């Protein structure tokens, strides 16, 4: 695949802050001075991230809980609007589009959620869950809906005869297939999978991962695959971005990242994946936990846990810079070398 193709989804300088308020007026400032109005608690969920997904490409997004990977996925899907930065779908900025064009652009990117129990309406039959959006968007009509739904279910490996059942009558793996059928029913070009296999048993997980790969070959789908499971990421993805506390700290093709991890955080993360061929391991650990995104550490966010932290890391934010072909890392150590 050529890396020069126009990106399907392009996030530029995207930031998302939760709890941020518009600037205070005169009255608000006066109240604050008197201590009657406390400054809001702002969570810096995503902080200046650039990420592009090209047609047919599988991009992995890894990081610990609270690093902002799900927020970024939701921004890419259009479920959240970024506080700063722009989201372009097929070269068009999402926020600049008017009603119909905007709807069409948002249909291109669909989401598959982690919890197949919570993401399906328990009171709707599968036929309605899968068919409703397609009918509303004019991809099928009332007469053809039944056949359309059957075709969608068939594609994800479910028996179309089950379409009149309710979600609780299915197993976890089957429910995840329903979620995928629902996402595919509006004919997207890209799926954002937010921990889509995390809740499944290994044998079922393998079935769903195989389904994702089949769909990619069949429909040329692109994926943004959000996961904390590096084994899954390594198997599935072309390119990986590693996030830490709202920032991308390293991004590289998957083989390059696993062969030559550059950022100390990536190296620590890779060292800690439990592996089936390692027996009676002495688990070596990076100390501490991910800090709160409400008060992130100054400079490089990783410096309090980094074994190689320098004074400079405390004061200066490292930028994401290329260190090899298609391999970028945000670490001051690369300057010293």
């Amino acid at each position, binding site marked *: 695949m050529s890396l020069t193709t126009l990106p399907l989804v392009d996030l530029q300088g995207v930031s998302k802050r939760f709890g941020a308020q518009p600037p205070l007026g005169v009255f608000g400032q006066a109240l604050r001075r008197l201590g009657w109005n406390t400054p809001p608690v702002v969570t810096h969920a995503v902080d200046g991230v650039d990420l592009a997904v090209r047609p047919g490409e599988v991009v992995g997004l890894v990081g610990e809980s609270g690093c902002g990977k799900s927020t970024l996925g939701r921004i890419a899907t259009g479920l959240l609007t970024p506080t700063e930065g722009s989201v372009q779908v097929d070269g068009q900025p999402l926020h600049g589009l008017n009603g119909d064009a905007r709807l069409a652009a948002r249909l291109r990117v669909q989401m598959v959620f982690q919890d197949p129990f919570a993401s399906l309406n328990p009171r709707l039959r599968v036929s309605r869950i899968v068919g409703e959006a397609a009918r509303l968007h004019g991809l099928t009509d009332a007469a053809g809906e039944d056949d359309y739904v059957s075709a969608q279910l068939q594609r994800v490996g479910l028996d179309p005869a089950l379409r009149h059942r309710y979600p609780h009558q299915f197993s976890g793996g089957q429910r995840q297939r329903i979620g995928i059928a629902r996402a595919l029913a509006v004919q997207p070009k890209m799926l954002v999978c937010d921990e889509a296999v995390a809740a499944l048993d290994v044998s079922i997980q393998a079935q769903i991962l195989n389904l994702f790969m089949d769909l990619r070959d069949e429909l040329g789908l692109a994926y943004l695959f959000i996961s904390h499971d590096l084994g899954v990421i390594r*198997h599935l993805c072309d390119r990986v971005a590693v996030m830490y506390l709202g920032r991308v700290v390293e991004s590289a093709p998957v083989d390059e990242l696993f062969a030559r991890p550059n950022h100390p955080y990536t190296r620590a993360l890779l060292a800690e994946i*439990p592996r*089936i061929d390692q027996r009676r391991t002495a688990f070596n650990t990076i100390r501490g*936990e991910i800090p709160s995104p409400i008060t992130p550490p100054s400079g490089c966010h990783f410096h309090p846990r980094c074994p190689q932290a320098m004074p400079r890391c405390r004061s200066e934010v490292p930028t994401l810079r290329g260190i090899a072909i298609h391999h970028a890392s945000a670490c001051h150590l690369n300057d010293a070398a």
Partner: protein
Amino acid sequence: MSDVEVPTLELRDLQTRFHTRDGVLPVVDGVSFTLARGKVLGLVGESGSGKSVTGFSIMGLVDPPGRVEGGQVLFQGRDLLQMSNAERRALRGDRIAMIFQDPMATLNPVLRVDTQMIETVQAHRSVSTMAARKQAADTLALMGLSNAEERLRAYPHQLSGGMRQRVAIAIALLHGPDLIIADEPTTALDVTIQAQILSEMQKLVAARGTSLIWISHDLSVVAGLADEIAVMYAGRIVEHGTVDQVLDDPQHPYTQGLIGSLPSANLRTQRRGARLRQIAGMAPNLLQMPAGCAFAPRCARASAACAARPEMSAPSADAPSHRVRCFHPGPVAVEAPV
């Protein structure tokens, strides 16, 4: 300890059934194993395989409609199932402890950590509150919690998920139990936190000679931690052996399928992005269990013989601890990718 070492735990033909309106579910169907002092057993299986209920049965925590209906649970030679409730209660939390998957469900949300820990200490020892609090602080420090004094004053919701699980584990460790049953305690945690907790557990078990049953669906975690692995399927142990035997030389088709469906295991043999080997079908409904081998409907090796119920194989001469419940055991067949 006498000359002939009594194992910490021995299960003999444990039967736990759930009596529901739809019928009787044999959730644990004849589970037997022996766990020596200081050893770590990884109990592996998928959802619904009965691995957690095995843990609950040992603890005596099976709630109606479930009932432990047969077999023996020998803890240091004494059958727990024959004991009175008072006797079992004296052991539980003192000599035998359990750690659960969700620490928020273990900890009382309206009590501070110190209240809960002191209560646990005083439930089994008559010590002063001051001494109990000191012991609580020491145990928290042992679990790698910095600033133990501040953590003691906190409520559970003020702690992160990883810290809560450390507190829950510290409570289990308070009395230095001889047996710990850990039911997926790191499943909900990040890899970095998981590695930290595994590392603490490993050190503690080794230092104190505690026996540990680590219940998990994740073979990779168990690979690094356990001495032995028992694989459960539909209420029965289908393969049991040392970590190396089970993972490097699996004999049961189900174990082979489990290992084969791991993306990391496929990496060694196949190119990236290739199809994962998957186990066909789904786990059986316990209400309509096949009469013979429960895995037969999904098994490529199934034959007419599988209509009878397979028993665990007798230990063989070259691998005495490796046993398998299968009529057609054998190494992985070389097969074309599906």
